């Protein structure tokens, strides 16, 4: 009986190689599955009138997900992104209005608008970088747990945004640029999605994917996340890498917030406090997208695909006549399932390893026996 059991388990672990490969690319399987199911229930799901707005709403979380994935790969969490989005949005709008007025308002013409936008952009991004630096320094040098640091930052920044906006929604005093950003470049049904915002988002996404997987810097970051001690012994400046990962996170979140606010022509101080919090959406997507929660493995593009998949679920649920409450529930259940699955697969791996070692030993003993008998 035991013999049978061993053989069975051994085969099972052979199978696990294939399973591992499938598991690391599970998000693609997941995405296809969702599209198939949603199309089967509602054929309109694939129509351009549905797909285009869906992708447009995904642009914000996709952009935020880039930095979030970086931080998680380095072995930390950045929970402040939810508030950083609002900082980016509020600062870019507020500063534009301020400098637009300084440059003479509508009397200044296009020149005033362009200059005001450039300065506002610079200030907002700078704010993002500073936030990231503070987070990173506190985590890497101050040795405070990233959870504490970034939750503190989240609270502080929410307060900042409220003070900055004085509780009101800020709109740009001149909406010339706003229209440019959100206008479709090509007027063909499905390609309507190609706005400047989309293009910026795609470029940033691809840039960070290449940075992560194809450069020395990115590869070192992966090693830092997988085993900080080992990385340090190999001469990698682990602190610098961790700080930079936080800077990337805060900057991409700021950029996302800026672009979102401009395209809506509104910076809302409490965006994300009602409804599905972008932080939760990004967190769920990053984990579902296969980034290891303890760090060391992950991909920006996979996170983006996960964002799209979750948006597709929301979208499909709405099309099937289900409300907002069910959406939130679905997102929660999905995240819980993935997290449980993650810990199960770690348990499984340890088990497989043990079984494999035992099988190797058995093989060796068999050979020894054969050698002694002959």
């Amino acid at each position, binding site marked *: 009986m*035991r013999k049978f059991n061993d053989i069975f388990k051994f085969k099972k672990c052979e199978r696990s*190689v294939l399973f*591992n490969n499938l598991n690391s690319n599970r998000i693609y399987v997941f995405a296809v599955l969702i599209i198939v199911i949603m199309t089967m229930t509602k054929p309109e799901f694939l129509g351009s009138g549905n797909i285009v707005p869906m992708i447009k709403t995904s642009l914000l979380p996709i952009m935020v997900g880039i930095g979030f994935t970086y931080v998680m790969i380095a072995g930390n969490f950045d929970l402040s992104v939810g508030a950083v989005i609002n900082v980016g949005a509020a600062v870019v709008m507020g500063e534009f209005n301020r400098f637009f007025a300084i440059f003479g308002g509508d009397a200044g013409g296009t020149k005033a608008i362009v200059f005001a936008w450039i300065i506002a952009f610079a200030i907002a991004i700078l704010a993002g970088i500073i936030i990231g630096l503070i987070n990173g320094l506190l985590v890497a040098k101050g040795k405070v747990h990233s959870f504490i640091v970034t939750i503190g930052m989240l609270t502080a920044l929410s307060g900042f945004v409220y003070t900055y906006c004085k509780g009101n929604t800020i709109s740009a005093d001149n909406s010339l640029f706003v229209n440019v950003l959100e206008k479709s470049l090509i007027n063909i049904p499905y390609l309507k999605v190609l706005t400047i915002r989309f293009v910026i988002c795609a470029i940033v996404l691809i840039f960070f994917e290449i940075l992560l997987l*194809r*450069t*020395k*810097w990115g*590869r*070192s970051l*992966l*090693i830092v*996340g*997988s*085993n900080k*001690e*080992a*990385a340090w*012994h*190999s*001469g*990698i400046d682990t602190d610098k890498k961790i700080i930079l990962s936080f800077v990337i996170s805060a900057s991409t979140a700021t950029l996302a917030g800026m672009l979102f606010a401009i395209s809506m022509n509104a910076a809302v101080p409490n965006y994300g406090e009602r409804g599905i919090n972008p932080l939760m959406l990004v967190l769920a997507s990053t984990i579902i997208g296969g980034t*290891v929660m303890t*760090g*060391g*493995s992950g991909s920006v593009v996979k996170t983006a695909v996960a964002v799209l998949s979750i948006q597709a679920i929301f979208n499909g649920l709405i099309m099937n006549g289900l409300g907002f409450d069910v959406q939130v529930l679905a997102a929660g259940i999905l995240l819980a399932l993935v997290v449980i699955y993650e810990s199960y697969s770690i348990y499984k*791996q340890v*088990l497989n*390893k*043990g*079984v*494999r*070692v*035992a099988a*190797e*030993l058995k093989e*060796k003993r068999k050979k020894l026996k054969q050698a002694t008998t002959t």
Partner: protein
Amino acid sequence: MNNKNNYVLEMKKISKRFPGTLAVDCIDFNVKAGEVHALMGENGAGKSTLMKILAGLYNDYSGEIYIAGNKVELYSPYIAKTEGVGMVYQELSIAYNRSVQENIFAGDIPGNGKFVDMKKLRSKTLNALSRVKLDKKIEPSTLMKNVSQHESQLIEMAKVLKDKPRILVMDEPTSSLSSTEVNMLFDIIEELKKDGMAIVYISHHLHEVFKVSDRVTVLRDGKKISTCDISEVTKEQLVEMMVGQKVTDFYKQHAYQDKGKILEVSNLTRYGFIHEVSFQLSKGEILGVVGLAGAGRTELGRCLAGADKVDYGEIILEGEKIKLGSMNKMLSKGIAYLTEDRKLEGLALRLPNKVNILSSIISRLSRFGIYFPSKGKGVLTELYQKLSIYPPDPNVGTSNLSGGNQQKILLAKWLSTKPKVLILDEPTRGVDVGAKKLIHETIVNLAKEGVSVIVLSSDLPELVSLSDRVLAIKQGRIIAELQEEIDENKILLAANG
């Protein structure tokens, strides 16, 4: 230049003090090119500390170090690396989520400019792997978590060798290897020797030292005992040098009479850790279990206590077959396990002592699901008296206690459960002599009261003075049983298989 003796490494009058002890006391140590120099000694003899100084992990040693005749100051791992010291650590530092090639070239990934050149990385990795004869066995892109322990040890070595060190230090490289794998490792060492590498080989395994090394240095209690050519000494002489003079009757040997079987273990197996371990335990017996690092000593204890999952096997306690289960279940049956790592697994250091001690008997002190800590007062005073814990106030936080008293608290925690079988994993690690003696007395008294004790330890004098019987474990299997006239030499030889 003073390398007329062809020494690649010379360490002169090296000392290193830890709070309370002189871990390394004025040691001279040198290695020639193309030589394997074995470094031996019992636990705590100072081998690892000496080599950590060489690897640049301590920046407050005293003494002089010369590498190839030049004086160097090894104040950081990076300096040590650039000076040509390569160290293969006992605990491997592996990034499990990354591939073999990334692990080997972590820190200086080859490429053009800022970008990684995957082809170059692959070919360089194959090159590095060829030095440890793995290039035909392992694909560089395999993830580290899918590589066996033996292979990851060799990969770690390849990682060190790729920097072309002059001196290679190996700390217990064979602790988790099987005999064929050890032979493979020796072939590799032989080849490195031919290339003129100076190798320091730390090991407890006598036969390995005789097989592989040219010279041997023995340390004891931080002092150098002797350095000699391996051809000039015998196994017995080496063991005597390591063990030193006997500390006779430091503790009285426990006179034990057979009072009948209490525990019977058969075919206990956890894949990859322990394999078909069977033994019996009598009432009031103290059973020592000895094994080198990675032999499966701790794992055996954890499996018996239900802390780790067992794949198959039987445990019969007092004639009743126990269903293998959780630690909680085992505790209720009367099997308690004292962990070897009191800080991480044993105690909640920030809580007061009484909470720590009573934490194992919360359900016994509860009525109808409500916890009455006041009921534990009697237990507390009894244990405090028995173990003479200082300070005698149970409200003091555990973190304020000395190591010895913390260990007493941990022991008290498990004694309060009134176990039938008590498994002690390294009961006196990091404990001062006084506390050690008291703990040993307590163990002997417990055995007299009829509690069966299993002592898992790497401290040989402890095993000699306490045990009625010693089991030697190696690679997860029991390989020897010593019953009468147990002494350190016998135990050491038995553990070496």
